[in-house]
């Protein structure tokens, strides 16, 4: 296996990226359409962008979405990582599998069911619907994906590594921070990013557990569907996309400059 990339590999990657970004460029393209819909490009305009910046409500919704996504991904990553470590330390394979089964229940359940049952639980517990109920739900449905992303990394760690550290007199805390966490860092980042994806994409669960004026972008977009989605949503997506890409690239180069290996240590 050569470590160099071949022309075939480059072509393959090019096609993958092309397909992944095609619908997004399609959305961005129509955000400049003066025609008002995503069919038939009539002329160039920046009106949709102007409309966007005058809409305080939409701005609040975007910020809500970002906060919920970041915080829920962060917290679920922490809980999920410790959960995964716990699963690894279980002695019996059968117990591991049954915990893993429970772990995956929320992944296999359709969103409506999760949303409806969380709603019932929150009202039973007397939690007011709004920011916290949405945050809690997003943490809840992101934890399993984090566990699934972290677990394979943990499983491939040889137990002798940890035993050796223990033998050398390392405390549990030291074993965790000096041995385990550095080893599974790529899995942790993968879990965080997938949790982010889950949170940003979720509509049904958020819909059920939100209230008191709190809304996220997905809920807003889905409820617009009956009237037809206006192009300022396209403009908004274009901006979010642009900002995200810039942030990702800047972050990448800063962390490299700072001497870290790659993307915030996606590598060991």
């Amino acid at each position: 296996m050569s470590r160099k990339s071949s022309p075939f590999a480059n072509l393959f990657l090019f096609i993958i990226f092309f397909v992944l970004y095609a619908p997004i460029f399609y959305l961005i393209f129509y955000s400049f359409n003066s025609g008002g819909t995503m069919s038939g490009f009539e002329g160039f305009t920046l009106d949709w962008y102007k409309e966007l910046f005058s809409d305080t409500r939409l701005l609040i919704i975007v910020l809500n979405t970002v906060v919920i996504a970041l915080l829920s991904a962060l917290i679920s990553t922490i809980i999920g990582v410790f959960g995964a470590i716990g699963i690894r330390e279980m002695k019996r394979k059968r117990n591991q599998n049954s915990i893993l089964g429970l772990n995956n229940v929320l992944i296999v359940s359709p969103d409506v069911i999760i949303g409806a049952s969380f709603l019932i639980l929150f009202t039973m517990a007397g939690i007011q619907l709004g920011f916290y109920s949405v945050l809690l739900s997003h943490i809840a449905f992101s934890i399993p994906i984090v566990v699934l992303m972290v677990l394979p990394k943990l499983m491939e760690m040889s137990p002798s590594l940890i035993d050796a550290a223990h033998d050398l007199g390392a405390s549990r805390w030291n074993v965790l921070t000096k041995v385990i966490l550095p080893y599974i860092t790529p899995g942790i980042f993968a879990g965080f990013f997938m949790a982010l994806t889950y949170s940003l994409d979720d509509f049904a669960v958020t819909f059920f557990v939100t209230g008191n004026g709190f809304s996220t972008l997905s809920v807003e977009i889905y409820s617009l569907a009956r009237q037809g989605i206006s192009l300022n949503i396209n403009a908004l997506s274009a901006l979010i996309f642009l900002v995200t890409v810039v942030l990702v690239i800047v972050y990448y180069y800063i962390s490299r400059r700072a001497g870290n290996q790659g993307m915030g240590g996606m590598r060991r």
Partner: protein
Amino acid sequence: MENKVTRNLYMIPYALWIIFFVIAPILLVVYYSFLDIEGNFSLVNYQNFFTSTYLQMTLSSFWYAFLITAISLLVAYPTALFLTRTKHKQLWLLLIIVPSWINLLLKAYAFIGIFGTYGAANNFLEFLGIGSQQILFTDFSFVFVSVYIFIPFMILPIFNALESLNPTLLDAANDLGASKWTTFRRVVFPLTIDGVKSGCQVVFIPALSLFMLTRLIAGNRVITLGTAIEQHFLVTQDWGMGSTIAVFLIIIMFVIISLTGIRKRGA
């Protein structure tokens, strides 16, 4: 300090999560599955599930989830492999995830435009001389868009598994005169199998209960268990039947987990 209590302290949030957000909802769902549409206790939902309509639906859900997982894997593995050889691999990997942060409904609308009769895909086919085809509302477009959505979930674990491969192993295989294909089959793939498994789980399990795309992209030509649950909860308001289907989904998932379950390395 090293007693059992502190040892398991860090597991508490995860355990609480399992109790309140997994077991409690399961109990609710199981409870609802025994209620008929009038709210009386009965087994009628389970009887209904074993009729040809729902069994057929289960079969087709499985078939599509299998297709989606298999194709995702076929596309994701080489992608992950080639990515590990690029210069700024971490950056490229992140750029694979970024598209999944744009709202799904919007992307589905974009696909409707691209795959439409007068869309870009058909223009391209015309250009090739194949001529315009019905792409939207076919099995092809459904599987294509589903794979599109799930592919980052497959690439990530495989990429991480490939990254932790020890390069000296490959060199050793090379030195021993193994061909590229043999090295892949005998060394690379077996060592990344955990990543592949994890990828397949995070694709197959949610693919079983896909719903929105079945309408948006397949025009309801594909009916899955997810669609049916959605209908029962939001249209019929027959939460009992919806829950019954969910119970079966959960059981199916447990079976899959125990079949593809964890094997301990180095033990």
